[in-house]
Every structure is written in C-alpha cells, then in structure tokens.
C-alpha cells in the first residue's frame, strides 16, 4: 500500500523511534563507546582500546559470571516452569478452596523483591532461621544457606522460584482453560488415560504458553539484582555475583565505568545469542509442525 503523503509512515513511527532511540539505542551506543575507555565518572576518560575486554577475559571474570548467571537461570526457569505447570494442573478446578490456593500461590509474585528477600533472609538464617530450626528438629544438620559458597547461588535461585512460580501457574491456567473440553472427551473415548491425555492433548496445546513462560522467566532471571543485593551482596566469595550485579559492582563499588561497559556489551551479546537460538528453534518448530 502506498501512502498518500510519503512522510506519513515516518511521522507515525517517530514517537516510538524517538523513545527507543533515546532510551535504548543511544545508551547502548554510549556503553559501547565507554567500553574502550578507563573512566571513573569524576576524572576525564582515558582511551585504553580493548584493554577492558582483555582484562575481563584474562581474569576469568567474564566466564565465571556467565557460568553463575546461566546456572542460576537454568534452575529458575526449569523449576518455576515445572512447578507452575504442576500447580496449574492441580488447581484447574472449580471451587472456593482452589480459587483461594491459586490466589495464595500467585500473591508471592506481586510482592516486591526486596520484601521477599528480607522475608527469606529471616527464614534462611543459619542459626535462628525457620528452616534451620526445622532441620534441627528433624535431626538434619542445617546448611549455611546464604554463607556457604557452594549453596548460596542455589538458595537465591530457590527464592526466585518461590516468587515467580505463581506467574507461571497463571499463564498455564489460562492456557489450560483455552483447551476445548471436546478434545479431552474424544481422547477419553478413544481409551486414553490421564497421562496419555496430558502427553498427547494437554502438553501440545500448552506449548505456546510454555514457550512464553520460558522466555519471560529467562529474561527475569537474567535481570536478577535486588535479591542478590539484599541477601548476599554477590558473596560469599563471589558465588552469587551474577551479571547485573557484577556490572553494578564495577560502576558503583570499583569506580570502573569502562570495565562495567565491557561487561554490559558482553551481556548484550550473550542475550542476543540466546534470543537468536530461541527464535531459530521456534521457527524450526513451526516449520516442522507445518511439514507434519
């Protein structure tokens, strides 16, 4: 379709382009530029070429941070997805009790991250916390949940799972309610049991919901900051220093804007790669489905 006035499409696009340019592309370009400088925000920046990238690579910081972030994300995405699906299947029933439980599970999602972190710090206190007291009562030696470098990252992942599982559940519930009852009835008439009905009817119909939940949980887990800032400040021994927190530490603690910018560029490239992979697999799935 050809517009009457050739400028009109650009005028319509302008507000969005302006917002995107001002708040996304311009800061991104600045970050890219800053990654080639040594700068502390107070003294003039000094050109250092690719030294910031070389430093984060040579010190092992980049790989360490990627490893921790991916470990955290995998646990958060997989467990919240599985739990959300399980809860949705269990609670997709009429009745006030089920409605109350659905509301209770979802309520964690609307509480602020800081409040959640503070609540869990109290529960997870190694000496007087609820969990440790419970462990001791059951004769189990409690762990130092937030103080043990081998455990702390997974403790934070568990807290994040607790918070976002309600969200996955709601999306899956919406997906479940979109599946026509006739499909289940037809499958039952054909002799399919509950597990077969789930495998051949429910799950294929829930795939778009699962894909949506997976993507949004992945984005959310990559943005983890508040929970780290409040509960562990990246410790112990850097074991919970995930990407966004590492960037924050470089800028605001170590006064190194250049190094933080290099980390940000690496983070951007990593997310771009993951998005491309996801998009590729989604397109592949669509093509496969069409061929089938």
């Amino acid at each position, binding site marked *: 379709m050809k517009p009457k006035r050739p400028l009109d499409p650009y005028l319509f696009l302008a507000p969005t382009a302006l917002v995107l340019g001002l708040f996304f592309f311009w800061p991104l370009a600045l970050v890219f530029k800053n990654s080639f400088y040594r700068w502390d925000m*107070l*003294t003039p920046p000094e050109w250092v070429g690719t030294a910031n990238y070389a430093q984060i690579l040579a010190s092992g910081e980049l790989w360490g941070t990627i490893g921790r972030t991916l470990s955290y994300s995998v646990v958060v995405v997989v467990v919240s997805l599985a739990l959300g699906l399980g809860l949705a299947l269990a609670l997709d029933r009429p009745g006030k009790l089920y409605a109350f439980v659905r509301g209770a599970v979802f309520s964690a999602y609307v509480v602020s991250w800081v409040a959640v972190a503070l609540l869990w710090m109290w529960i997870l206190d190694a*000496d007087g916390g609820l969990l440790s007291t419970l462990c001791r009562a059951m004769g189990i030696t409690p762990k130092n949940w937030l103080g043990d470098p081998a455990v702390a990252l997974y403790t934070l992942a568990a807290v994040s799972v607790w918070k976002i599982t309600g969200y996955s559940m709601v999306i899956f519930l919406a997906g479940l309610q979109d599946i026509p009852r006739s499909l289940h009835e037809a499958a039952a008439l054909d002799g399919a049991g509950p597990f077969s009905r789930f495998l051949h009817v429910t799950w294929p119909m829930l795939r778009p919901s699962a894909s949506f939940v997976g993507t949004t949980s992945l984005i959310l887990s990559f943005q983890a900051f508040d929970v780290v800032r409040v509960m562990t*400040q990246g*410790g112990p*021994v850097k074991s919970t220093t995930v990407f966004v927190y590492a960037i924050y530490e470089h800028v605001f603690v*170590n006064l*190194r804007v250049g190094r933080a910018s290099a980390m940000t560029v690496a983070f951007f490239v990593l997310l771009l790669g993951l998005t491309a992979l996801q998009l590729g697999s989604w397109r592949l799935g669509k093509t496969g489905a069409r061929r089938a």
Partner: protein
Amino acid sequence: MSVRLGRRDALLTLASSFAALAGAGCARGGKDGEASLWFAYGGTNREVLLSLVDRFNAEQTTYRIKAIYQGDYFEALAKLRTAIAARAAPALTHVVGEVVPYLAQAGTLLPVDEANHVTGDIVPALGQTGCFVRGGERPIVCAPFNRSTPIAYYNRAIFDELGLHPPTTWKELESVARAATVRANDGTVTRHGFACPIDWWFWVALVGQAGGTVVENDGAPSLGGEAGVRALEFWQRLVHEERTMKPPPGRDYNAWQATNTDFLAGRVAMIWTSTAFLKYLETNAKFPVGAAPLPGDVRKSVPTGGTMFVIPAASAERERPAAHAFLQWMMLPRQANEWATRTGYLPVSQKGLAELEASGYYDAHPNDRVALDQLKDAFAWPWAPSLFRIQREAVQPRLEEAVLARRDARATLDEARRAAREP
C-alpha cells in the same frame, strides 16, 4: 458553570505540567540559607544526627540544614559520585577517610577550612593533617565527623563465669576464644568464642599488629608483606583449625550487623567491631557488655575509621554558607561531645575532650575510654589516591575468598598486590 476542555487543552496542560515538573527537578539547590546534608547512618546514630540538625535549625534562623538519608557509606558514596558527575551534589556530606584522597585528586572537594575556624581545635589523630601521601602544603578538604577505631566487645557474664580476661596478645585471643567456644556432642559449635567481619579494616589492624603497613609512605601497596600473610593466616587458623571464630555471612555492613546480632543473641562471646556500636550494644544487650582494646602481636596497632565531612565542588554555591555554618557548629565542643557520648564515636574537639575528662565522664563510662586510649596506637592513614580502590577492589573480595574458601594466604595477597597496582 461547566468548562469543556478540548483534547488540545488537555495535551497543553499535560505538557506544561511536565515542563514545570522538569524545571523543578532541574532547579539547583533550595532557598537562600538552606543546604542539604547527605548522611549515611541508620539506627541510633541516625536519630542522634537528626536531633543535632533539628537543634541547629532551631537555635538560629539564618541557615537551615535538610538532612537526607542515602543508605550506608558505600551506597551514599555511589550516589555522591553520580551527583558530582551530574553537577547536583549536596552542599555537605560525609565520606569514609579512604576515599578522601581519591575525591581530592579528582578535584571534586572544596577546602572546608580556609580560615582555620573549623578544624583548629580538633584532636590531631582524627583530622586530615599528616594523612596524605606526599602531603606537603595542601588545603584542608575534610573535617572529622564520626571517627572511630575497632575495639573488642565481650560478654561480661560469659567471661566472668569462665574466669576469662580480655586478650592482650594474639596468643591470648586464641586461648580465650577456645575457652569461650561451646560445642554440642556432635561437634557442631553452638557458641563461638570470637567473631569479626572479614573486612579490610580489621585485617589492616591485624597487619599493623603483626608489624606491617598496608600502604607504604610513598603510596605503594605492599599489603603488609609477611605481616599481611600472617594476619590472614591467623584468621584462617581461627576459622578452620580452631573453629572458634565465626565469619559472619553477608558483605560490608550486612556482615557487621550480623556480627552485632550474633553477639547480642549470645551466639558469640567476643567480637571486634567499631566503637560506633558502643551505645547500640550497651543498650540492646541483655548482659553486661565489656569493651577492651584490640590485642597486639609484635606491637599494638589500630587504624582509625569512620567518616569525614566534605563539601563537594559540584554543590550549589548558594547552599555553601549554610553548610560551612553547620560544619563549624558541629566542631564545637558541645556538639562534638554530644555526638560522641550518645553514639560511642570519638570526641573530635580537644576542648570538648578536656571537658569530658574534667567532668568525670570517662570514670563513669569506662567502655567509652577504650577507643580514646587506643588512639596512641593508631597510625595516620597513608592517603594515596588509589587507597579506596585498593581497599574495595583489590583486597576486600580476596580476604573473603582466602578465609571462607581457604585459599592460600600468600597467593591471595600476591594476586591482590597485582590488582592493587593496576591503573
């Protein structure tokens, strides 16, 4: 009468509201005679500071101070740097001593005392004089505010019950911690004899006690050489071999708070922390709290700590007279003493200190005397511009790694030295 607003009118109103809001946000400073003070205390210390600010505002009508809380020291510093970069800094704030040389080198601080009205009476060990590496003649860019030293606090009830005395040497510290530690039948520790945040400040104290210096007089980061290694190995031994020292969870002031909480809950018999917590611990403990100087190894040594008042160059000019007036008022004996006696920080005014001595305050409050007496063992910080980065980036994270993950102390400090020399 009803007025019908068109879409254009609504949009115009909205746009002008935004413009007004933006204008208000961009306006520099408040009314004439007003100044903002960014501060970084919670709890009792915050209440004391706010009561002093209220008194300053009530005692005169020319100036008005607006005190604004900005998180802990490091959060406040992050905000201050951003505000300086945006040329929207407060007229007065306070920063940890280690960061003063960095801010001064960057040209972001104004002299606070050109006429020597503010710092003429301060206790010499607590001011700027003698601190800067290659100091020479330079303007006074900071005035002492809440100054402290680390001290030992002990649970007097436990110590009396076990017949223990505060340790005066590292050896005694080991044996006292061992005696005060309680283990269950399965070997798990139910009460630690000793706890201390794994923090640069306490490690610097240990390095000094072991005979070393963290930053040499020329600004080179030696990290104490052999003394640094011995200090770190001492912690490692107490935590892993003796299992009498509890390394608190969390970092920075979260770890400090965890140490206090453990002490107050009776989970630890003795802690090292700042004299800043003296009144807090005395008030909140359900047992008598004793205070003692830190022990020595080859010598006694403690760093001073706390923060200094600074006036950022990026502050609004019209706010500065109020900031100067408040600063001068805070250095007077009455305020300096009130701040010290209500918090536990050191009194910074010499005249004020003499008044406290004469009034018999220290006889009635022997715990308050500990940090003061320790000043004879305090050293002047070698304020090199890189000191803050050495602390935050090169040393602090590695101390945690060496103690908690039990990394070789020498290798850790070699790596920290390399990191400290990075530009």
